[in-house]
């Protein structure tokens, strides 16, 4: 203050008009607490929660329980990474840039695509941005999506699509297996369709097998084919790049990120090596380059002329801060697992979830799954014949220290009292059996 020749800090605020200076007390804690008390306070509040680490929880639906290796936690706490910002100065940010380039590259390997950006906020916003991207690429304004989709994803898409006049239409599913109704697709697709979107595995856990047919239908009408994926399935499921996807979106949270009550998540976006697509891609993309004197390889942000800080109102998106550190976590996770690990993960999840299906389907008056087809990780369980609501079942399960599946009876009334269950590698055989036994007790009153 001496250097500035001021006596009071108020002098630096003198240009704020009197009437806007705050002169009343605010209803927030007035005085700060010492660290030890903050810790105690927050720990006490959090101890009111019953987390899935202490209570078997069979929930997925866009945020999945998987083990996060200690190495991942350690690396993302490296403060040079944690406390840095967007690598605007690449020479001093090579670490973050290389890690993100490696994340992009590994996403490409899993999805079978050529280019990935270094993250969107989550699957829902990645889908919304992909839809907008497709309409720009194609100069058309209609998007077809499946009827079986996470309602939050559909809502986010609508919120992003409506203001710019993008029309989103849902395609019906086949009653027996939930797969896309191709006849309905044919009746809705036209030369106004910018893209056809499907999910694999679907929101309700089944595997969509008509991918070639859907891709061909999209191509025949000059539309793009967008696929949404859970990347933990891609060790065993055909990568979308192999069946003609132009853009892949998905949720990479399960690759090394904790659930954190639903956020942050990690929106994944990848596309083919096609300048028409790449130029319209939203978000940050890291590229490999060399030093100016060409003596060394290095990394920097590329194609920044797509972005808001250069192009402003003409940018492909307004996205700036993204989920970079979550992408680093995923890169570490994929590197730890390697090809064998990611395949094993897929197998384990398939085996365990099918084990749960086999136990539940043996219980009288319980239908599991509703759709008779192959499932990965998640599946539907119906209680109509038992005369129970999901709410009642879940209440009873909670009494037995278990969290049942997600109630989807309001989302899909036509499926009756149905819940969406999720089983991954974190669920032990014993926990799965306990859950099935508890449901049997609840249904049959024993």
């Amino acid at each position, binding site marked *: 203050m001496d250097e500035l020749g001021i006596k009071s800090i108020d002098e630096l605020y003198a240009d704020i008009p009197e009437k806007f200076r705050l002169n009343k007390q*605010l209803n927030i*804690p007035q005085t700060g607490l010492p660290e030890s008390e903050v810790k105690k306070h927050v720990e006490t509040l959090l101890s*009111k929660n019953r987390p899935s680490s202490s209570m078997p929880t069979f929930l997925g639906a866009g945020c999945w329980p998987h083990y996060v290796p200690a190495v991942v936690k350690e690396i993302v706490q490296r403060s040079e990474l944690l406390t*840095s910002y967007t690598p605007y100065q690449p020479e001093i940010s090579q670490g973050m840039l290389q890690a993100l380039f490696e994340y992009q590259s590994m996403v490409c390997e899993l999805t079978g695509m050529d280019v990935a950006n270094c993250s969107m906020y989550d699957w829902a916003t990645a889908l919304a941005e992909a839809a907008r991207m497709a309409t720009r690429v194609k100069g058309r304004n209609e998007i077809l999506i499946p009827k079986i989709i996470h309602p939050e994803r559909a809502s986010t898409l609508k919120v992003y699509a409506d203001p710019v006049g993008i029309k989103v239409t849902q395609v019906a599913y086949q009653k027996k297996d939930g797969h896309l109704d191709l006849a309905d697709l044919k009746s809705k697709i036209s030369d106004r369709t910018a893209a056809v979107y499907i999910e694999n595995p679907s929101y309700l856990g089944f595997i969509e097998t008509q991918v070639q047919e859907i891709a061909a239908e999209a191509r025949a009408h000059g539309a793009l084919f967008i696929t949404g994926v859970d990347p933990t399935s891609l060790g065993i499921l055909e990568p979308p790049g192999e069946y003609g996807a132009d853009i892949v979106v998905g949720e990479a949270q399960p690759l090394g990120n904790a659930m954190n009550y639903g956020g942050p998540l990690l929106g994944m976006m990848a596309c083919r090596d096609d300048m028409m697509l790449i130029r319209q891609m939203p978000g940050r993309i890291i590229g490999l380059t060399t030093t*100016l004197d060409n003596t060394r390889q290095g990394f920097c942000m590329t194609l920044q002329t797509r972005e808001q800080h250069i192009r402003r109102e003409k940018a492909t998106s307004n996205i700036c801060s993204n989920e970079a550190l*979550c992408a680093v976590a995923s890169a570490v996770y994929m*590197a730890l697992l390697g090809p064998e690990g990611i395949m094993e993960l897929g197998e384990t999840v398939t085996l365990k979830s099918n084990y749960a299906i086999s136990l539940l389907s043996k219980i009288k008056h319980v239908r599991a799954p509703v759709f008779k087809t192959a499932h990965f990780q998640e599946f539907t369980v119906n209680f109509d014949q038992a005369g129970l609501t999901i709410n009642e079942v879940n209440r009873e399960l909670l009494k037995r220290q278990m969290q049942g599946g997600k109630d989807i009876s309001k989302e899909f009334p036509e499926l009756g009292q149905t819940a969406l269950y999720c089983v991954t590698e974190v669920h032990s055989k014993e926990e799965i059996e306990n859950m099935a036994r508890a449901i049997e007790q609840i249904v049959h009153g024993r």
Partner: protein
Amino acid sequence: MKTSMYKQASWDEPIIFNLGRKGRRGHRLPRAEEEIVKLISNMDSLIPEKMRRTDKPGLPELSEVEVVRHFTRLSEMNYGVDSGLYPLGSCTMKYNPKINELLAGLETFSTLHPYQDGSTVQGILEIMYHLERWLSELTGTHEVCLQPAAGAHGELLGTLLMRACLESNGECEKRTEVIVPDSAHGTNPASATMAGFNVVVLPSGPDGCIDVEALKSGVSEKTAGLMLTNPNTLGLFEKDIGEIAKVVHEAGGLLYYDGANLNPLLGRARPGDMGFDIVHMNIHKTFGTPHGGGGPGAGPVGVSESLSKFLPVPRVVFDGKRYRLDYDRPQSIGKMKGFYGNVAVLLKAYAYILSLGLEGLKEAGEISVLNANYIMKKLRQVKGLTLPYDGQKPRKHECVLSAKPLKTDTGVTAVNIAKRLLDHGLHAPTIYFPLIVEEALMVEPTETAEKEELDWFAKVMQSISHEAYTKPEEVLEAPHNTAVTRLDEVKASHPKTMTLSWRMHLKRQSVRT
């Protein structure tokens, strides 16, 4: 002057695909129990053949220690707030308290699933509920929504709320324009466009602030709103904010507050009191959560009472006994993303506010202003730098200098200065922004810079100026002490050389050979 001893680690670290060896594994996840494998027959019957992956994914194969060393080396070739001064203007790179990381890592939080029964998540809901109230108090808004994942995401929500409001008034067809000053962040016009508005750019007045007369002629029956950063990107408080609010409101528009620069005002003034209808906050700036190399952040949005009904679902509500998520908001615009927002980041902000209290937040803002004015005073004395716009007025959290005279005299530009700063173990300021300042250097030291650090920064800037006038090649060829020297960013974006993934790299190599 002798340069500092700084030398960033410069590992010759291969791309991860060039490390390891076939068959190596860094981690073993649990497998299905043997009994399950026996009972569930083989995998082939579970996955339809046509959907089975036939090739192994081309991921690298490394042992655990190789993975750890690789990423540790990478981290050593990075620079964060914990490494040193990071005066990146508009980004508020303040210290990130360690206790908050510890709390967000607790399993009583991190393993919570967003769809768990309300009775099992009372603790986190209570935290979210109180955080909403606190942010609402601090910004003078009626209700705060925590859902947006970043500042720009908050901006998008804000502009969508403008739209929702117009739709409910039947004015959506008529009011198609959002006014954005020429000094605004790039996200502002981009967000307005995403929400379907046309952007009208408002030139700043000669004092760097909004020219109220120009605003008056800019507003019309087409105006949906004005997006404004206050203090603005020059670090100047918009003195006419009362008048600005009046003009916008009388024209029938809404006033949007870009919260990137909220830090200096905490506990001193509130956007809501100034007439702003919609306010976004950058949790990762103002409330001390780490930027993570570009995210995750969080961008809550506060609104005036009449706009509350349009906020995304769900809202956290409290009935006096229990907290719960309320989806019953018929006029809500819907969802901005899955679930409820970046809760791990929000939890850290809760702990931050608890640690500082109102007094601490106010003091933090004040010191950030003191630091900005101190560094401004030092830097404007540096030969070749000028302080555009009103030189008599105090700045708030940041100041913007121009290196135009230096460029004219020596050929050394803002980007050269930035690169030379890196050589001294200092991060560069934001450069070439705001666009209204030529050769701009936007310096935001934040409250967590000590005086000694600011003096060192000023001294280094002096030395760079001296070098520019005496041996400019030293500056023009910078950086020398970072992991790599100047990178070829043109090559990185050129369609012929652009390499955006390992597979593209292999493809390009095979074409070449």
